[in-house]
């Protein structure tokens, strides 16, 4: 519960309609799209302007109230679960595109703009904002920036941080910071823009952003290649890259995923195949035509049973749309669907896919894999039931081993979802103890009171962590607790 005086003050800032503090409201902001995590905030506030955000943060700083900023809550790292209570600052009301600058090829927008909405608006002008997370019809750009979201076009176009040129953000002391801007070249001082992108709400509340736009590719073709087995498709991916072709999108779905996606989308996917690749190329028509031909040849050579090219842009769009449903459609199989985000250098993809299958078998858990094959970003997804504690434990062990495998192959623990709470125990595996120390110092310098999204990124305890390399076998000392150490897992108000 917020103190009555604080609630009164917040109401004076945003208007009484936009402070929500009933148990029902708090419950509705106690979760995001990450399974197994839930924690009640003390209140919810929906500011409409940057000045209101600044005023809210000043109150929180004075009172020592924790802040979790969020958009649609579609993230998959428990990054917006208010694990230490406090105030949830919902930014969906700040949803205006401030400007699309066709001369400088930039767009400036508020954090609550839905990603797909920006796509539509810039594409009307023949411009292109490539980052397209699977949830782009729901997710907000502010959330994309905070988590440094990726998407289906990451292979050719990169992720959110490759497009954000400038930010306006409210710091933990309530001051308004501006970083970067419209200048293509800007090397003045530390790159605070890049620091804030992907900072997962732990350093500031993002209130406006300027993004780089590029010309909209003039044409696009989509192709579907079906393989009897997983390794054939993975080999095809490696070969395509080795042949110096960079498709806009190269998505991979295994048999389990194909079946559930087809069950929902009914677009005629080959449900009897071991794996499919959905490949899209964009650019000048002649180049697209040539690349599609070459990729089709490679797929056939690597054992594709069938290769078909979509007849129309609509048919292609349908295919890609179906792919976006993959994660949620997997939820049809069982009550709890836990998705991970292990990523390897793209040439190691086939090995990683194999390892996931071996690990799933070892722990006796049901894992389907799909993902952005082209950029080595896999989403091994486990179908389980949160009520079966014993199985959940095995699931966690399996995922731990999957992360270790990814790291060993030179990869990372998250390609696009962020660390949040879901992967904070593994961050040091990727960045090392020195990396953790540098990150903690930055956090301490900017947010000395630790009020911005506490309990994320950095694991609380000083558990011994796995040591990678040095020839020694990976040593795992601490069992990965239920909810990755989220001790208030599923606690809600009574």
């Amino acid at each position, binding site marked *: 519960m917020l103190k009555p005086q604080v609630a009164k003050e917040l109401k004076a800032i945003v208007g009484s309609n936009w402070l929500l503090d009933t148990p029902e*409201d708090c419950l509705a902001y106690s979760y995001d799209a990450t399974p197994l995590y839930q924690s009640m905030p003390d209140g919810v506030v929906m500011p409409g302007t940057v000045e209101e955000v600044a005023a809210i943060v000043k109150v929180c700083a004075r009172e020592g109230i924790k802040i979790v900023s969020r958009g649609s809550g579609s993230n998959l790292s428990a990054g917006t679960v208010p694990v230490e209570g406090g105030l949830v600052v919902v930014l969906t009301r700040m949803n205006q595109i401030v400007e699309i600058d066709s001369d400088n090829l930039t767009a400036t927008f508020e954090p609550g703009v839905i990603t797909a909405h920006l796509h539509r608006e810039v594409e009307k002008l023949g411009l292109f904002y490539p980052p397209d997370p699977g949830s782009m019809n729901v997710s907000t750009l502010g959330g994309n920036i905070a988590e440094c979201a990726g998407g289906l076009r990451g292979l050719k176009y990169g992720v959110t941080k490759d497009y954000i040129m400038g930010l306006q953000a409210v710091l933990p002391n309530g001051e308004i910071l501006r970083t970067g801007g419209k200048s293509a070249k800007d090397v003045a001082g530390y790159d605070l823009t890049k620091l804030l992108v992907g900072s997962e709400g732990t350093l500031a509340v993002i209130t406006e952003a300027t993004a780089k736009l590029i010309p909209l590719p003039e044409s696009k073709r989509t192709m579907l290649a079906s393989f009897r087995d997983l390794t054939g498709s993975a080999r095809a991916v490696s070969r395509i890259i080795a042949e110096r072709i960079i498709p806009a999108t190269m998505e991979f779905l295994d048999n389990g995923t194909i079946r559930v996606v087809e069950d929902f989308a009914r677009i005629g996917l080959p449900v009897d195949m071991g794996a499919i690749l959905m490949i899209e190329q964009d650019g000048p028509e002649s180049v697209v035509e040539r690349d599609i031909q070459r990729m089709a040849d490679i797929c056939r050579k690597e054992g594709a049973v069938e290769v078909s090219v979509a007849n129309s842009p609509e048919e292609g769009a349908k295919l890609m749309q179906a792919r976006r449903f993959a994660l949620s459609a997997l939820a049809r199989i069982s009550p*709890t669907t836990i998705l991970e985000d292990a990523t390897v250098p793209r040439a190691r993809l086939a090995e990683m896919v194999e390892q996931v299958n071996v690990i799933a078998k070892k722990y006796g858990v049901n894992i389907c894999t799909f993902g952005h094959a082209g950029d080595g970003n896999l989403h091994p997804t486990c179908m389980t039931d949160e009520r079966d504690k014993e199985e959940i434990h095995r699931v966690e062990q399996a995922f731990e081993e999957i992360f270790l495998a990814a790291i060993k192959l030179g990869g990372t623990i998250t390609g696009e979802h962020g660390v949040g709470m879901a992967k904070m125990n593994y961050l040091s595996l990727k960045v090392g103890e020195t990396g953790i120390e540098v990150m903690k110092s930055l956090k301490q310098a900017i947010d000395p009171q630790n009020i911005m999204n506490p309990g994320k990124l950095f694991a609380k305890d000083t558990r011994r962590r796995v040591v990678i390399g040095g020839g020694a076998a990976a040593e795992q000392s601490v069992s990965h607790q239920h909810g990755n150490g989220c001790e208030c897992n599923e606690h809600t108000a009574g």
Partner: protein
Amino acid sequence: MSTQQVETASQNGILQMMETMHYDDILNCMRCGFCLSACPTYRETGRETASPRGRIAMMKAVATGQLDVSEKFDSDMYFCLGCRACETACPAGVPYGTLLEGAREVVEENRKRPLITRIIRHVAMKKLIPQAKRMEQVSRLLYFYQRSGLRRLARSSGLMKLLPKSMAEMEKAVPEVASPAARKERKRMLPAKGEKRLTVGLFTGCVMDVMFFDTNEATAKLLSAFGCDVVYMEGQTCCGALHAHAGDKQEAKQLAKQNIEAFEQSGIDVLINNAGGCGAALKEYHHWFHGDPEWEERAERFVAAQRDMNELLATLPVPKMRSLPYRVTYQDSCHLAHGQKIRLQPRELIQSIPGIEYVELPEADRCCGSAGIYNLTNFDMSMQILDGKMKQVEGTKANLVVTSNPGCLLQMRAGIQRAGLEGQMRAVHIADLLYEAVE
């Protein structure tokens, strides 16, 4: 009671609650949020509590005893239109409509309504709607009110201002009802015109038969023109959708039993309805009787016989039609599109009429805000949604808006009046339009 007894009792209570609320289905929501952009009330308010994901989270908390069945929970559950657009959007296949009904059932069991509300509900839901004779009397009263000059007097005298804003607004959209004489003329059977293809029963509905008697008649004649012998099924009653949506599952099941018995005695194989909302309920009877040894199978047979009018007509050869000079757009009935997955058939039927210029309404499957009695119970939100809808309707420059459900039809009529489009545009039921072409 001992502590242990208290614990057991409360555990039983929770188990009972979980069953009523379909806890297993609640768990299937994986909170991805794909429903958010499909939800009309979330789009209008931006609040998680007004979204399917938020409502399901609250249901889960209530089912497990973490949240009380509070006034806020009550109003949040009834703030939902029940349009089920979220079901279409949900890749995980969560049966939201069923969850909502369960949650409202729990609300009704746990919350006391003011006496006046209980009386009105009791009269409307139990003494009026399910009883054909009384509905007949209502239609006579309505006829008298409209034709005797009473309506003119009520409107000009300012009497309307005494009514709640919602009732007064919707009163303007109520159509001219059929005369008692016209009602008497209805025969029990209408033979097929030309070659006979099959015999069908007609489900006339309750409100539909009072307010849109002529549309029911047009539906029968239309079916006849498509080669069907049409039987008005004896002993039928209200489908129970309104009751189920209002959390009164017991009454809904009573009505369902009556309809199933009437159907069994009629000997008909195919039962046609022309109201998307009723149709969706009729097709869900087997879920209502899930696990009931006496009724489940009978309900399954009943469900297998149900066809929406559009669904059946689309399978029959189109009779000769005359050319109609309209520019037409189509507003989906939520329960036809999202509930019954019938989208293409009405569009194809409309476009089979020569002379028609068809223009697709953007977001045609987004709720118009009618939603049963939502436009009376949540008037302001309903009108906010309707006004947004009318902007899109106006943009089509159609002079005819076609719907497939009586509630939507009334709402679109109210919308046309609110937008000041009376001179340019009419709203009609698809049966009336098609009948005009085959007449």
